[in-house]
């Protein structure tokens, strides 16, 4: 009941005309950003961060989480309409949504996916509302060794999920750690690598992400000459509303997707993309007609859509309760929490409960807005996308430059943003994952701090990690995750080799 009371308190804080307008705008912006190929949730949050300066904390966080949620809705629009997934989780949506579009059922695909996204988001939010306070109440028993190991587990999972790119993921993680070492050392207070006075405080995290995800994408799209051509799809309103038959086909996959998405979202490092692929595979296996997958199967569309939206609130659970982000998007959210002067961790819900609950209430409201807007305002989204599609590169460049300038009202951060823009471009061009890099930039200073505190607590000995029961459990879990992941990769390689040999 406490959770519901707190949620009501959160609603009390956000139900002002300004906040409602912010949440609605966030949903719209997120949907458009999510729909644009190349710009995903991380880019959306990064580009919107400078807009939150000067806003009250709750409004700023509502804007960012609303954009995050909106991108998950938006990714499906271009997937279904023109077979161009707006972001990685929407790749699966294109597999079933675009064939439906070709069959003249595009509006139905948009409608079903909007409903499934809503249910997925709502389910994830309910778990967030009721589970987060419980986890937070236990999290206060964790000390520096446990925190260090949890962060290391998150980073290890992200790297292991990189599959064939594991060396590249490890390489960019190391680069991220090095970037994070600029500025004050938390433990000794010494200033590291302040080659110019502006670096005394370290490299501004927001400038890094704006460059990496905003400008990097622009450079890449300019090279690839990515062009959107949405045309003028014409739908009637009643075509968006699924009938009884479609709803009954979508109901069970939506529920399964919601559960799977929330669970995978909670696991640090997994994220929405992995969740949608797993859910699609599960739906195909459970289906009585697996051969219809890829030809416009409603279960294959509804399940993954629910999954990717459920993963958003799921991924916020470890962020809010433990201060541990599990993905690029939540890493940026962690940076935003720190930027607002909040201290992410087990005490966040106690010390800044009002802001956290206002943010959660904002998410509930955003999810409802997004359902309504993604059914009623599809023509508006299509027209907005058509308006920016020809000049997208310049819109993003302008937002990046002005956003970076806004950080300290000086061109220094524009230089930083440009350098990381080039880095982002080179990483994308050569298939180096950006997720581990940004996670390392955010987590490394905290992890270094916890690690050195732990060793000090252990009087200079690393045995402290083995002596404490919780940290030992986390260590064993981490070893299991690594072992299972390596075993899975070796098995997949052997299977591929065997298949190759059989083919010959």
């Amino acid at each position: 009941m406490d959770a519901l009371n707190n949620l009501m308190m959160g609603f009390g804080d956000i139900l002002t005309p300004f906040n409602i307008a912010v949440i609605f705008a966030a949903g719209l912006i997120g949907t458009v950003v999510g729909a644009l190929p190349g710009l995903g949730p991380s880019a959306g949050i990064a580009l919107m961060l400078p807009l939150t300066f000067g806003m009250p904390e709750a409004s700023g966080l509502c804007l960012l989480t609303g954009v995050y949620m909106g991108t998950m809705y938006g990714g499906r629009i271009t997937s279904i309409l023109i077979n161009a997934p707006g972001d990685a989780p929407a790749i699966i949506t294109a597999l079933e949504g675009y064939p439906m579009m070709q069959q003249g059922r595009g509006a139905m695909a948009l409608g079903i996916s909007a409903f499934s996204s809503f249910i997925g988001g709502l389910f994830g939010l309910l778990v967030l509302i009721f589970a987060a306070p419980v986890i937070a109440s236990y999290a206060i028993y964790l000390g520096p060794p446990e925190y260090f190991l949890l962060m290391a587990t998150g980073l290890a999972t992200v790297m292991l999920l990189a599959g064939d790119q594991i060396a590249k993921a490890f390489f960019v993680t190391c680069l991220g750690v090095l970037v994070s070492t600029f500025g004050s050392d938390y433990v000794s207070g010494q200033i590291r690598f302040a080659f110019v006075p502006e670096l005394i405080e370290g490299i501004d995290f927001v400038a890094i992400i704006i460059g990496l995800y905003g400008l990097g994408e622009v450079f890449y799209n300019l090279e690839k000459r990515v062009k959107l051509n949405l045309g003028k799809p014409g739908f009637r309103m009643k075509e968006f509303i699924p009938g009884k038959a479609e709803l009954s086909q979508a109901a069970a996959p939506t529920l399964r997707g919601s559960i799977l998405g929330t669970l995978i979202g909670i696991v640090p490092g997994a994220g929405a993309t992995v969740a949608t692929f797993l859910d699609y595979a599960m739906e195909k296996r459970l289906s009585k007609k697996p051969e219809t997958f890829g030809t416009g199967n409603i279960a294959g569309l509804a399940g993954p859509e629910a999954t990717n939206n459920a993963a958003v609130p799921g991924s916020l659970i470890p962020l809010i309760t433990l201060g541990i982000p599990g993905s690029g998007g939540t890493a940026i959210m962690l940076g935003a929490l720190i930027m607002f002067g909040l201290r992410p961790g087990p005490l966040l819900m106690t010390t800044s409960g009002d802001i956290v609950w206002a943010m959660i209430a904002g998410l509930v409201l955003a999810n409802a807005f997004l359902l309504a807007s993604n059914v009623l305002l599809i023509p508006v989204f299509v027209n907005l996308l058509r308006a920016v599609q020809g000049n997208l590169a310049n819109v993003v460049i302008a937002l990046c430059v002005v956003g970076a300038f806004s950080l300290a009202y000086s061109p220094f951060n524009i230089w930083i943003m440009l350098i990381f823009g080039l880095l982002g471009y080179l990483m994308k061009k050569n298939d180096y994952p950006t997720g581990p890099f940004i996670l390392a930039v955010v987590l490394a200073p905290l992890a270094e701090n916890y690690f050195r505190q732990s060793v000090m607590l252990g009087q200079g000995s690393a045995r402290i990690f083995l002596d404490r029961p919780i940290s030992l459990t986390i260590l064993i879990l981490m070893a299991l995750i690594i072992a299972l992941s390596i075993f899975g990769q070796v098995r997949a390689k052997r299977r591929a080799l065997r298949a190759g040999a059989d083919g010959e």
Partner: protein
Amino acid sequence: MRTSELFLIAATAVFAVVLGLQSTDFQYFSRQGFGPGFVPTNFAILTLLLAAYLVVKARLKSGGPFLPEGLAERFKAVLPALSAAVLLFGATALMGFGSILAPLYVVMVIISLAFLGHGLARALVFNAVTLVAIYGIFSLWLNIPVI
């Protein structure tokens, strides 16, 4: 191996060497644990080892010449991204004179004309409208001194 990948690895390696050398100024051990030099030193070494591994792995994988052929064509392909970066670096240098939006506008118009296939009028109007909107949001609404 792609030239751009080699550039990425080489630049990262140089960065790691610089930080690695600089980190010798900081204590590796402190009285009861590790000092501020511990993380940068170890990660600089790790980065260099991984850079070497990635280069060697790419070398072993590629049967032909180490760098791909047809460099002129590849350079032509990356020209839009490279030009945009150079233009932005130049514009940022000019921003030191006081205006953020003026050099930015020039860059945006050039990108529109050269890479987005816009005509002059469209480039001038579209980008002016974009910057007016941004000025409205940042300067008038958020009171951030963007001029």
